[in-house]
């Protein structure tokens, strides 16, 4: 493969609000190959809005500009709605941060998975049902048969996230943007889910953008990490070099985690400097 899968150059997303403009993303640039790229950053720093802009899921009233926003040679700022629909789900997938609310509330989990399956593959109903159950099992859902028949509001937080991941497995996209896909999962299940994503990258050559606020997790899982602060990238580094992070925000993050066996009350907090906004 020549060239990157995704090129983002000087991406900006701005919202008009009652109290003035909110510049959610202020000039973000990066490229993605068939690799695991982590995006970490402060709450509200523009991680989700970056992912949504790539997916074409920015709310209509917002303003998006970029000098380049390209997926496999396709200009994402100029695609027609039809091209967009074809890309979405088939070639590019996104796991949204609010998994339960991206599912259809009035359709059972099983039915939704089957519909997604049938849109991608020619299968009989019973084959599709078996495959759906397998998918739920693959993401470590304990009793797939029961969960199959539940509505989204009847599953736990962690189950909702895994259902979304199961749907993505079916679609088998070339690029996946996963927005906090494991934040509601306990660590044991989290690791299983990461192994699944890891396999998709290693075996199918998928490009993965892994958005998370969890620096420790991202650095142990991704190849490269981008650190965002207030709508900008303040640092980009190979995961292995995290300990050598230069930006005070990144350094500070590592220091304020509570850990077992340390007794620091109150926890150290970051002193945010005005110049970080520059």
């Amino acid at each position: 493969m020549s060239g990157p899968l995704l090129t983002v150059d000087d991406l900006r997303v701005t919202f008009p609000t009652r109290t003035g403009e909110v510049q959610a993303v202020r000039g973000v640039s990066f490229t993605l190959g068939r690799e695991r790229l982590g995006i970490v950053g402060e709450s509200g720093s523009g991680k989700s809005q970056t992912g949504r802009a790539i997916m074409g899921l920015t709310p209509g009233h917002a303003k998006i500009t970029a000098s380049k926003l390209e997926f496999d040679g396709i200009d994402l700022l100029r695609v027609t709605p039809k091209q967009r629909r074809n890309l979405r789900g088939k070639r590019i997938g996104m796991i949204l941060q609010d998994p339960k609310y991206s599912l259809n509330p009035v359709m059972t989990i099983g039915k939704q998975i089957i519909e997604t399956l049938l849109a991608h593959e020619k299968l009989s109903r019973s084959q599709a049902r078996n495959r759906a159950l397998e998918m739920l099992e693959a993401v470590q859902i304990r009793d797939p048969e029961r969960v199959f028949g539940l509505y989204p509001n009847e599953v736990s937080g962690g189950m909702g996230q895994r259902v979304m991941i199961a749907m993505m497995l079916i679609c088998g996209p070339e690029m996946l943007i996963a927005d906090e896909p494991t934040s509601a999962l306990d660590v044991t299940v989290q690791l299983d889910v990461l192994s699944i994503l890891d396999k998709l990258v290693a075996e199918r050559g998928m490009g993965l953008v892994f958005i998370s606020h969890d620096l420790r997790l991202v650095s142990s899982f991704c190849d490269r990490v981008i650190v965002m602060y207030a709508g900008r990238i303040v640092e980009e580094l190979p995961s292995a070099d995290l300990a050598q992070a230069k930006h005070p925000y990144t350094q500070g993050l590592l220091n304020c985690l509570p850990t077992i066996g340390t007794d620091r009350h109150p926890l150290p907090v970051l002193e945010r400097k005005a110049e970080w906004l520059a």
Partner: protein
Amino acid sequence: MKMGKMTDRTALSVRDMVVTFDEYVALDKVSVDVATGESFGIVGESGSGKSTLLRAVAGLNRFEEGTLTVDGRNYKSHGRTKEFYRTVQMVFQDPYGSLHPRQTVDRLLLEPLVIHGFDNIDARIARALDEVGLGAGFRFRYSHQLSGGQRQRIAIARALILEPKILLLDEPTSALDASIQAEILNLLEQARKDRNLTFVMVSHDLGVISHMCERVAVMKNGQIVETVPVEALEKRAFSADYTRQLLVASEGFRRG
């Protein structure tokens, strides 16, 4: 020694609680006693019933069997008085579902204050926002205009603003980056110290649990399999396999 407090005054007592959804038993005779001023942690695998337990206490799920005593009063499976919500507030795992998307932050914080007849409303809202690290600029935003972590912080502000005695916290910081998490945890600790609050806190982060709590219960398949002082986490003095797995897994991802 901390458990001795329980005889002084119990904030929350759950006895043999059973919750079922159709045939499925989500809580299977769960008993918990939390002393006034104690911070009690709950961990356990996804789907083990942690949220169901908090929701049943808050009157959002029915319970089929068992008893519930909160701040000296007995409560039935359903129906909670205004007084109950003055005493007990809950922060939900899911900030998307718990905040009405078409309401401004101001409205979301104002409503509970008005319902419970508070004074100095304006100052209380401003302070609550400030405490969770969201400035005045967020006050007239709609909740759908906020990021995930910002919503979670509004949910925390809304629970604290009523100055309850007992806080039920369901993964309160799992959507937050470490820096904001540290600020929120400090805020919660300070509030607990100042007002002798009682916490029941669900988290899958053992670091957070050991930092915030005195005891921790481990849940599995709708049951509490063990309850230990948090020091046991450090000393690895616990018996449930699941607790051990959690500890190992909390060290990060290993390829292989």
